[in-house]
């Protein structure tokens, strides 16, 4: 009996992991709380209560929803401004502060007339984080009167991201010192 129970105890958790598509984690407030019903009816289930330590994600989300009704940015403001500043030497094709995307037009530097660049930048979230921005640069060269795609050195994208982050840091420290 005992080895069978033991095997069951090992197998069942493993088996439960096979459900994949039809599977979800049962949240803590879906289990009964038997203090003769006294502690139940807590507002918002396990998210109730006053946060005394740490960042209240729910409150952040609520406030973001309250502020974001059409006017505010839905991405990090420092990263957004820094990306605009960094890419401002190129003409902008579109900038969507809600999706966090910035797309530029083709730009030909004065020093090299036979190549042109275009950049797409994504600001990924509300947090000011080093992985909060992605920049992708496209390059074409003029070959016998035709623009053809050509490679961009791998460092270009990350260099531009670094510039954005450095600018965001500047903006952040400026606003903090004010």
């Amino acid at each position, binding site marked *: 009996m005992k*080895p069978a129970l*033991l095997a069951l*105890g*090992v197998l*069942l*958790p*493993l088996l*439960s*992991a096979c*459900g994949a598509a*039809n*599977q*979800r*984690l*049962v949240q*803590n407030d879906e*289990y*009964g*709380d*038997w*203090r*003769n*019903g*006294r*502690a*139940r*009816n*807590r*507002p918002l289930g*396990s998210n*109730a*209560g*006053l*946060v*005394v*330590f*740490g*960042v*209240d*994600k729910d409150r952040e989300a609520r406030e973001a929803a309250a502020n974001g009704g059409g006017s505010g940015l839905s991405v990090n403001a420092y990263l957004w401004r820094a990306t605009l500043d960094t890419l401002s030497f190129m003409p902008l094709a579109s900038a969507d502060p809600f999706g966090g995307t910035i797309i530029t037009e083709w730009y030909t530097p004065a020093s090299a007339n036979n190549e042109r660049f275009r950049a797409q930048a994504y600001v990924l979230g509300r947090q000011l984080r080093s992985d909060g921005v992605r920049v992708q640069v496209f390059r074409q060269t003029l070959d016998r009167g035709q623009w053809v795609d050509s490679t961009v050195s791998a460092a270009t994208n990350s260099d531009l991201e670094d510039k954005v982050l450095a600018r965001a840091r500047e903006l952040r420290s400026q606003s903090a010192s004010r």
Partner: protein
Amino acid sequence: MRKILLGTTAVVGAALLAPAVAVAQEAPTVRIGGFFRAYYGNTQQTGRNSTGPSTLPTGTGGATGNLPADSTGNIARLSKNDFSTDAEVHVFVNGKTANGLSYGAVVEIAFNQQEGRNIVQQRASTGKSTASIDEYYAFIASPTFGQIRFGDEDGPVGGLMNSGVVTNFGSGGVYGDRESFVSRQANDRTTTAPGALGDNTKIIYLSPQFFGFDFGASFAFNYNEGEDTGCSTNQSSGFCDSSYAFTGASGFGVAAAGPNFSARRNEYQAAVRWRGSLAGVGLAVTGGYVGAGAARELTLNGTQARVFNNLNVFQVGAQASAYGFTVGAQYEHGDSNFFWGNTLRGDRPMDQFFAGASYTMGPFTVGGNYVIGTFEGNSRSAFTGPTAGNPSGLTRRADFANGAGMMRRLGYGIGGNYRLAPGLDLLAEYSSYTVAERGRDLDPSNPGVQDRATAKVFIVGTRLAF
């Protein structure tokens, strides 16, 4: 065996603790929550006027006899009216690791350390509202492998995963806060609610839900909770959580109130639950089992006797809800006494049926529930010491008549509440609970045989959950 165990544990550990999904890490938060409630209660309980003056300084002596009315006709009795307050403060810690595991801890601080006042010595006793721990446990949860809770917490059968126990109105109806107003006389208290199975220290596994199903299992070595062993010495005494046999064990099938002093050992629970909806009706069905061994009785010359049945109870429950209505029912059967304790060998098994319904309309909820059960009453056997022909040492009591020993316990509650604000309820509730056992005097201090004891409680008050 050990190799297999270590090997499989490693596999499970690796599978549980290293999901390959990248999720944003969340620094832990600490939240404070809890509840406060204050009630007025009017109680009508049989035998509450049998208050012979207790001359014992400790106040622990039994009721001695009914006093006659004095010359002006006054009868000493306990008052029917009382206020009752209670609160708990809960601390919730929640965090998430970078690989998607959520983790945390719950610490529930209660303020009802003592049920009855009991003076050990002047200025050396515990206050009735001294802080104590209700439940505390840590958990680790993964979306793929479910959740492990470790600590003092209800089990899957004893509160976490039950279906059909409708208590979402008033203070809970027959399973509500009525016990705050009822004295322990004749055990006229609702002792077989799911949560009364106990929040002894256990390890609990709760699966994720797949195709509507989830299941849970738990294990506890004994009935005790908290930090220490409870053993003051190496003596095999009942105070020791881990004693396999102790003198006087046969008296602790019913747990002693307060110190969690019970014969229950190696308790395991398992439950399967299905939740889903059919044609707009929300459904939940749970089947579960709780089993446990028991400590043996140890005689003074060292003989051990197996006096208890194993705890061995099956449970099924179902509920349906639609358009604000919820109806549910639950049935339990197996070897257990009326305190979720081990029965003595030869005792009858318990049967219990519960049904309830509630209706919610806007801020109002009204409902009712009903419970009836048959249990072994005043046990038919007494421990007299093992002999060659009778290794259990249990002998049939001389006064045991055929058909005796059957205790019926039935009760109902009706009530409602009005939600004044989120978390803040005003509530009113009436409940009645009766214990009846043919031929047994449940109130020995009154003349004659009272084979029936009833407590009726009316509660009105407020409850704030925060």
